[in-house]
């Protein structure tokens, strides 16, 4: 498992992590909620585009 984790670790985008580390935990939580909201909006738009709504 350690080899697999080491391999996966090489692909981690550390710039995102460094950016997040500069934020407060609250800000990280708020950004997650904003991301989820945007994802839902995209999903709704996709359904509407396909005439599913």
């Amino acid at each position: 498992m350690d080899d697999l984790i080491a391999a996966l670790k090489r692909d981690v985008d550390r710039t995102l992590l460094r950016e997040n580390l500069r934020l407060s935990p609250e800000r990280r939580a708020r950004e997650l909620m904003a991301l989820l909201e945007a994802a839902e909006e995209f999903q709704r738009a996709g359904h509407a585009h396909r005439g599913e709504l």
Partner: protein
Amino acid sequence: MTDFHRLLRILSDAGVDFVIVGGFAGTLHGSAIPTRDLDVVYSRKPENMDRLTEALAPHSPYLRGAPPGLPFRWDRETVAKGLNFTLITDLGAIDLLGEIVGGGDFAALLPHAITVTIFGVPCRCLGLEKLIEVKRAAGRPRDIQAVAELEALLEERGRAG
């Protein structure tokens, strides 16, 4: 969408003893992997189970992914007879865990928890090192992916001082 803010607020206001674990704990530490549910390990003490059931009752908890109409009753007896509950509520998805692989129950996790104030609510959140440990123990493909990121996060945190 899961309203992390309101879920944490109602649990906290009700005085429920819990520790945030899983993907949302990762988010609070700085993970960039999004999660859609709130995972908490709750204390199985009788008074805490009372507080938990009362806090969530007004929010229509139901087994996530189960077909509608099952005879599921959200009350203290149900919680006492079960352990881990994967629920959907009108505030979103929440996993209530009596214990977790590699971490144990609420009391066992408590020494590894830190207090984080989010949305004005002081909450216990599993520390990053222990979070890595329990995700390693869980060992599912998505956990392994998360471990890689969390270990990188730990290294970055160390570098940042």
